[in-house]
């Protein structure tokens, strides 16, 4: 039953039908929620006109640089914290203090420091995604079984080889789970940072269309961003399962 794609996505289909009918029978004001078909037409026009593409590319660049840097820096920092008590003592209080901070609160600070361009957006995304990656790498590396490290050492592995060949792969399941959280956060901060200021990106397109009262097109972009987020998560999940095929 649950394997059936049609049944699995039935609620989504019902929602789409409701969205189409509700504005048409004036259950809701069509100027506030245009029918789905109108939104689809607006989406097609945005696609043909190239607006969706050009802003999408701009967002994609910010997103990939921001997320990518947080993954690289986060893994390195998290593993180093687990590796060295000195680094742990220095970094741990900072990480713990920053963890509960609302991620979008960083955006105005980054704009102040880095200006209105891509730099502040990349930095906002990077900083926001950093903490879940650091924590997952830290916990993952610390959770690696001591006897696994000893087994490698007894086989003749050096400390450095242990780091690359035992600690990192051993921490990988946790790291990949942490990155999944980071991916979710990255979409939030991406759109939020572009909504706030800027002349490019999908978030900017949403606010531009919204302010201009072009609500069908605005909804089209909102749906696009949601769909991108959804498919990014699905694709990531697929990649994660493939990578961790050795488990269970």
């Amino acid at each position, binding site marked *: 039953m649950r394997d059936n794609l049609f049944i699995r996505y039935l609620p989504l289909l019902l929602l789409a039908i409701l969205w189409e009918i509700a504005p048409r029978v004036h259950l809701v004001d069509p100027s506030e929620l245009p029918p789905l078909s109108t939104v689809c037409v607006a989406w097609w026009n945005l696609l043909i006109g190239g607006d969706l593409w050009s802003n999408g590319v701009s967002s994609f660049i910010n997103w990939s640089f921001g997320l990518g840097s947080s993954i690289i820096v986060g893994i390195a920092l998290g593993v180093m914290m687990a590796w060295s008590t000195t680094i742990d003592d220095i970094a741990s209080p900072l990480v713990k203090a920053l963890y509960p901070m609302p991620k979008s609160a960083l955006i105005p600070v980054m704009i102040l420091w880095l200006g209105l361009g891509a730099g502040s957006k990349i930095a906002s995304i990077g900083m926001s995604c950093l903490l879940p990656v650091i924590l997952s790498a830290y916990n993952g590396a610390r959770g690696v*079984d001591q*006897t*696994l490290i*000893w*087994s*490698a*050492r*007894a*086989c*003749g*592995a050096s400390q450095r*080889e242990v780091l690359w060949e*035992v600690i990192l*792969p*051993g921490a*990988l399941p946790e790291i990949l789970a942490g990155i999944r959280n980071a991916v979710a956060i990255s979409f939030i901060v991406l759109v939020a940072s572009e909504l706030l200021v800027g002349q490019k990106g999908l978030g900017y397109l949403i606010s531009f269309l919204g302010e201009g009262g072009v609500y069908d097109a605005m909804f089209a972009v909102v749906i696009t961003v949601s769909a991108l987020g959804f498919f990014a998560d699905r694709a990531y999940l697929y990649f994660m399962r493939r990578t961790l*095929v*050795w*488990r*269970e």
Partner: protein
Amino acid sequence: MRDGSETPGHEGMAGSGIVFGAVSHTYRPVRGRPVLALDGVSLEVKEREFVALLGPSGCGKSTLLYLLGGFLPVENGSISVGGRPVIGPGPDRGIVFQNYSLFPWKTVKQNVLYGLEKQRMPKPERERRARELIDLVHLKGFEDSYPSQLSGGMKQRVAIARTLAIEPETLLMDEPFGALDAQTRTLMHEELLAIMRRTPKTVVFVTHDVREAVYLADRVAVMTARPGRIKEIVDTRPPNGVRTDYLQSSEFAAKVDYLWNLVRDEAIRAQEEQG
């Protein structure tokens, strides 16, 4: 304090005889007070001898093994293998742990190959050697399985193969069959003895199973409850030197009985301490 009594230039008598000289070890947990785990343990293991360390849980027998493996620093006393003091882990001392400690992201074959890669063995040679070892532990056909797909006994055979692959002179075993069911354990005992007949090694085998110790070892060193000391060393070789039917013999039963009485008091003491 590291061992300084050995004069340099003893490579000629290398070998794999082990000497524990008055080894003490204090375990310092991150929180809580330090605990004296080992108190002046002295023991000699001759080359190609199979010695079991027998004692109640928490008596420090595994700690002694980790010190010998070079995983923990020798702070008090000295440990030497083949006349050379232990200063860190090395491929001359292979180790097998109770929890198998296989790399879960590597297949059976990749696990067995790991040590050979570390030893920089050329590829065709290490492929051949890995095949031999997988054969030796009867895991042909499981080369591409991941550890998560194997039973406990199979996992431990992979671990033994990985350790034997690099031909260590000394084999350290930390309750290797403790997590297996009784039948599997008995089969593993026979397999281990068969392997030792083919490639004799110096073995230090940690266990709290009296029968296992008597069956496998040439000598059994009984340890006291914490802090661990050597209480008595008992020769457990079968009278005629042959292990076939040893399990059924009256000599075996007598040895088990004698050792059990030695361990019993210590086990009770250990239990009381844990409260």
